[in-house]
Each structure stands twice: as structure tokens, then as C-alpha cells.
């Protein structure tokens, strides 16, 4: 995803612990996030805005957050936050 893009979380993959952690930090299915800093293959974590909170998510982790971008009208399930 590109910087500044907004998307809705549609699924969380990965282990139970990881998913619980994301959920407890407010990242639930249906919530909207905005990418502030993208990984762009650099290996850096992804920085997203979730409401007023700013979350840094490790690159490997971000690949497990499924979203569909809001900007594109068509449903686009399975887009990862980090690509």
C-alpha cells in the first residue's frame, strides 16, 4: 500500500498471540487505517494511523494484516498492508 492510502481491515492472519495483540491495540476487522510510512521493500516496519493512535508494525507482521483499500472502489480482498 502506498503512503496516505486509507483502507479497511478485513482479516488478520498469523498466530493467536499476534492477532490478539493487534486486536487489543485496536486493530479490529472493519476498522479503518491509514498508511503513514510504507515498507516499500526496505525491511522497515510499516507505520499506520488507527484513529488517533500510531502503530508501528514489523514488516513480516504487516503482511498478515489483510485490508481492502478504500481509494479503489472495487473490492480487493487480500491486499496486504505491506507489500
Amino acid at each position, binding site marked *: 500500500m502506498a503512503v496516505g492510502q486509507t483502507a479497511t481491515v478485513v482479516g*488478520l492472519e498469523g*498466530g*493467536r*498471540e*499476534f*492477532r*490478539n*495483540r*493487534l*486486536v*487489543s*491495540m*485496536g486493530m*479490529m*476487522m*472493519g476498522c479503518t487505517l491509514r498508511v*503513514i*510510512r510504507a515498507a516499500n521493500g*526496505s*525491511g*522497515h*516496519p510499516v*507505520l499506520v*494511523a*488507527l*484513529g*488517533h*493512535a*500510531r*502503530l*508501528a*508494525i*514489523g*514488516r*513480516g*507482521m504487516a503482511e498478515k494484516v489483510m485490508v481492502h483499500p478504500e481509494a479503489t472502489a472495487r473490492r480487493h480482498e487480500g491486499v496486504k498492508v505491506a507489500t
Partner: protein
Amino acid sequence: MTAQVTIALAGNPNSGKTTLFNRLTGLRQHVGNYPGVTVEKSEGTFTHHGVEIRVVDLPGTYSLTAFSIEERVSRRYLMDDCPHVVVDVVDASNLERSLYLAVQIMELHVPMVLAFNMSDVARARGIEMDLPKLSGLLGVPIVATIARTGEGMDVLVDQALALAGDGPAGPAIPMAGHQAGLETGPARQVPYGPEIEEEIEHIVAALEVACHQSPGRAGLRWLAVKLLEGDEEARRFVTDPRALAQTDRSIRHLQGIFGESPEIVLAGRRYGFISGACQEAVRSTVEARHTVSDKIDAVLTHPVVGLPIFLAMMYLAFQLTFTLGRYPMGWLERLFAWLAGTVQALLPTGPGVGGALGSLLVDGVIGGVGGVISFLPNILLLFLAVAVLEDSGYMARAAFLMDRLMHRIGLHGKSFIPMLIGFGCTVPAIMATRTLDSRRDRLVTMMILPLMSCGARLTIYALFIPAFFPPAWQGPVLWGIYLVGIVLAIACAKLLGKTILRGEAPAFVMELPLYRLPTLRGLAIHAWDRGWLYLRKAGTVILGISIVLWALASYPKKQVYDRDYDAQAAAARTTLEADVRSMNLELGLPAESYELPWALRGLEYRARHGDPITPADRRKAADEAQDHASGNPASRPGEQRAVAFLHACAAIDEARARFAGIPPAQGSQSDAQSLALSHLRDQGLADIARSSGPAYPAALRYLDEIEPAYVGQLHDLRNLRRAEELSYSVAGRIGHGLEPALRPLGFDWRIGTALVGAAAAKEVFVAQMGIVFAVGEGREQRDALRSQIQEHYTPLQGLCVMLFCLIGMPCMATVAVTWKESGGKRWAALQLAGLTALAYVVTLVVYQFGRLLT
């Protein structure tokens, strides 16, 4: 009348919980650990309207699952320790997520007050809250607070006390004289929806049939919810197989309905409940997107621009700590040296119980306490710097930047900061690992931290590198040694991560809190906490070990020496007396006259005790002799001449001290100033010569030949004696005993003995080498020691010593801090044994290969 009420503080990380805690308790707090785990437990007390209140600051968590140790600790505390009331600190600017924790605490049936903290920030962000309405919807009292300014604190405590009064576990507290607070209904239950509620009922029924005990006051419903979530602790708690079978059935059933594991569905329902309440009572008027924090982050978290800023910040923190810290450290060292000297002078010396006691007190206790305290300025300053980084919110950004690098060695971005501090001193670096959230990361970081070559080890390199390497090579060799440490640290981190500290690569999900200006109060409390913790926990261990090491280096005492040092010292004194008598003739006195030796006795005493003789000492001796002579009406010419002689000595010494470092006025001096100074000095000396008459040449001979010869002889004897004593002591015997094991590394017993000393602190290695080589342990003897080392060892051996000191045997302060911080002797033992074994292997390989090559 006072009654003890316990308030537990819960809340998300960065919700201002700690600020609120500090605001409530001030300095009346202490930090401990929860039993059995290494999670910090901060407690404090304060009095409110005559009621004594204990506050327990729970670890900051987002949830109360059983996944992280902090969450388990918080949950267990709330359930088992029955605080009278919980104050959940809610970040009002981040409402829904903060309430997620609040809802879970609510489900535990603990009386709770919500502190809507940072309500000013929320207002600034255009969030309008109808608190009474929200309070009614959630069924808990809400108080708006601003912890940074202290706003709302009184109301918050009133409210908490009111609740504690009616709380199920609370004692009756006299409430007369203040308001009872908001009227709220009973705490609401999260409605999980018919399908889930049905399954909850099934499980509760199964638990009731089994007459299962209820987990504290939380009740069976809570237990059933946790079982549905697959909570491991809840499963362990439930012993009834039928209830567990029902649980598994329910989970499968719900999974089938929702196509998602129940815990996620349950979380969704909680969020649903929260957002339902928020929709009615909270309005966000402005969609604030680009806040100031985001603008700062655009620069500071930038992968290219952010990095140099980060490095500059680290450099600044490092410099602040180790440059500013050097002054108080020096003062403290001088204070303890002075204390040791004063105590030494008061106590009897020599053999016998008195001497042993004095040595224990001076070298063991004062030395040990001094060693502990002299770390303190660095620790305080360092944690001040760390507190600034943390409280401002920058630490999370630093971790963000460093994560890519640290991730490669299986560590969290935050590990970078302790590792950097490790180049200054390992002890505060290990304490700084407290900023790491995961225990696994903390342990890995602690284990490898001693490989970051600390400042004390630099003294060893500074001794060996110039002894063996030409100037052009010195820099690269030093750099190479540091690099070896870093490479080994990376290798060890990877190895540990793949073996005993296996665990999934840390899930890097971290909140970047808002940038905030740290409060002075918060910083001071933070730094003081750490300093006190260090003194109390590590200090006692360090003191104990330093006394043991003192005993190792002092006992057993040698009864019969290889040489008769006393006789040799007496012989030196006889020579001195003969020389002084020969000066009698030069001064025109009879050879046997006693005045001169009498007048010099004070200086001789100083020399005999190894004390330096300063120009001031000479002036004092001269003045005393003069007083004696002038007080005596029948003063003889002998006394007059002795006085003149002493004054001449003092004058010459003073002139030399004043013009120290000025070369003689000879040859071509380009520097006009130094030429002028040397002329001035020569003129001064000429004046002294003119006014002193025959005393002048005698004084010169005494200062330049007689006294230095005597002092030098005594000095050598003392050093030889100390070398013999050390070699005879347990430390020396260990050194000798280790020689067969150390020989493959190229080490002899001297290095072995010095390594025993290095266990106390790395810089002791150099001092011990000085003693075993009988050149003395002071700084002035470094050159003498260096030439001894050059004579006895090859460059390869020198390199091996440096490698061994770099890798092996972390100093006892490090081991003590690791022990206390890791919460177990095991980890400290592993660190000590593991690193020493690694050092042995590396040094062995280097030495044996090196020998083949040379």
C-alpha cells in the same frame, strides 16, 4: 482515623498512567518485582482526607489475556490480591482502544473508576465527551483528569474512596465530610449476542454441575468467557474434564457459525459495546489528520533523514552521561581515597588483628563501597537521558528506526539503545534493558551486552596496544577489538535465539505515543528510582564480592619472605644516614652533629611510608626547624645551618614545581615564552643559590641524589614485597594453579593472577599486573609496566590478553546486575560461564594459529 485502602492503577502504555502515579504518590514509592517474575511492581502511598492509601501501579497493558507476562501479572493481581478499587487510566484521545481494557477489567467485577486522562489533548483534537452519559452507559464512574498538571486528582481519589467503601472487598471507610460522587448504575455486562451467550451458559452450567470453584471474585461467567477465548491459564484452572469437553464443543460450534475463532468474535463484541456507548456520548467534531506529532514523525521516522538524527541523539545522550559523569565520579573516587587514607591513619597497621581489620576496612569495605557508589553518577545521568527519550516519546521512534537492523539478529529495535550504552559501561546498559517489553529480548540483550567493549576495558587496551603495536597500527587494532566484540555479540544473539531462548521472532507491534514534553518531576523520579534500585539491589552484591576478592588477594599472609625486606630497608636507611652525615661536612659542621638528621626526620618518615614529598612538606619541615631553633635561646650554629639547608631545599623544590615542564635554557628555543620562563627559573635558582650560601650545593645533592636513591630503594622493596605477597595469596595461587590451563592461550601465572583481580573490575587487571611485575600499581608506573610487558610477552600474547579481557569474565558488577535484573542466578551464571568459555575458545584458536604463523 486512618484506614488503609489499596488502589490499583491500570491502563494502556502511554496513557499517562505513570505520570498519574507519580502525581499521586510523589517520591513515597518503591519499586519491586511481582513474586516469581521480573515484571516491575511500583507501589506508593499517600494520604487523602486522613485516609492512608496504597497505590499499586500495574504494568501498562492493552488487554488482560494470558499471552504476555505483564497481562498475566495484572490479571492475577486484580483477581487474587483484591485491591479495593481499580483506577483505569484511559487515554481520552484514544478512547475506544483504551476502553477495551476497561471493559475487561469490568468483567472481573472489580470496583473501577475511569480516569479520562489527557482530556485536554482530546479536547484539542475536537473530541467532545458527555461524561455523565458515558458513565451511565458503561456503568462506571468517570473522572476527567490531566495528570501532567494534576487536574482532577482530588475528585478522582474521592470517587475511588467512595467506591472502595461500597466495594465487596473494602472495609467500611468513614466517608463523612465529602461527596459520594456520581450516581451510576451497576457495571454493565458486555452483551455477547444470543449465540455466544448460549454457549457461555452451557459452560457455566457444566462448571456448576462440577461444583467448580470460582476464580476469585470474577465469577464463573468470566471463567466461561475466558475458556471460550482459549485462555491457557483458564484451562489450567479448570480441572473438570466435562467442563473442558463442553468448552471444546462450544468453541467448535461458534467457529462453525462465525467462521472465525471465538476470541476474535468476542473481541469484536466488546468493541461493538464500546463503540455503541461512544456513538451516543462522544462526538468528534474535527477530523484532525495531520497533527504536530505526525509532522515531527515525517522527519524523525524517515529511514534516511531519521537515522543521522537518531545517531546524533544517541551520541548526545552518551556524551552527556560519560562526559558529565566523569566529574562526580572523580569526586567520589577522591572522596573515597581520602576516606581510605583517613581511616588508614587512624587504624594500626602491620601484622596482627588490628592491621587485618584496618586492611579489611580500607581495602575491602571502603574500596567496595567506593566501587559501588562511583557508578552512581553515570547511572543517574544515563537514566535521566533514557527518561527524556522515553517520556518525550522518542524511544519508540528510535526502536522503529533500528528495528530493521536489530531484527536481523533476532532482536527488537529497542535493544539497540542498551547495546550502545554498553560501550560506556555494561552495568547501566543492563539496567536499560528494562525498556524492552519482551522477556526473551531482555535476556538475549543482557547476555550479549558484556561483549560491547566498555570503558574500563579501554585501560587494558591502552596498556597493551602501545606496548606491541607501532603508532600507525594502534588505531586499527583498537577498532578491530571493538569490532570483534560486536561480531561476537551478533553471533551470540543469533545462537541464543536459536537455542535456549528460542521463541518466535518478536512480533513488532508498537504504539508510537504522542510527542510530549517530559516533566521535570517525572524525569527526577525516574532517574532516582533507577539509582536507588541499583544501590539497593546490585550494590549489596557488589560489596560482598569485593570483600571476597580483597580477601583472595590478601590472604594467606606470608610469614617468612624470600628476601629480608626489613633488613634491606634498614640497610638503605643506614646508607641515607651516612650520606646525610657527609653533608654535615659540606655545611661546615662536625661529621657527627645530629641537627641535620633530626631536622630531616619528618621527610624521612614520609619516604619510609611511601608518601610523596611535596614542596609544601619541605617548607613545613623548614618552618618547624626554624621555630624550634628560634624558640631555643641557646640555638647552636648546627641548628641554624640545618634550617638554612631545609629552606634551600624547599625553595629549589618550589621553583622546580612552579616551572615544571620548562626545558633548560639551552640551544635554540623557538618558543619565546618558554625561553622567558626558563630564564626566570634560572634567575630564581640563582637567587636561591646566592642567599643560601654553602647550603645550596648540599641541598641540590640531597634533592637530586641522596633522597631519590633512598626513595627509589624503598619503592622497589615495597613493590617486590607486594609482588611476593600477591603471588603467595589465594589470588596468586589461583593464578599459578590456572597456569597449566592458561598456557595454551599464551598466559602465564602473572596474567592469571591479574585476571582474578579483573573479576572485580576490568581496570583492576592493569593495577594487578603492576603489582605482580613489582613496578607499582599507580598511573605513574604505566611506562615501567609497559616495558616489563614488552620484555615478557610477544605481541601475539598481548593480543590474546586483550581478546580474553574483551570477551570473557564480565566484571562482578555486571554479573550482579544481571543476576538481579534477570531475576535468577541461572542467567548470571550462564553469562559468566558462557562468555568465559567463549573467550577461552577464541583466545585458544587465535594463539595457536598465531604461533603457527609466526
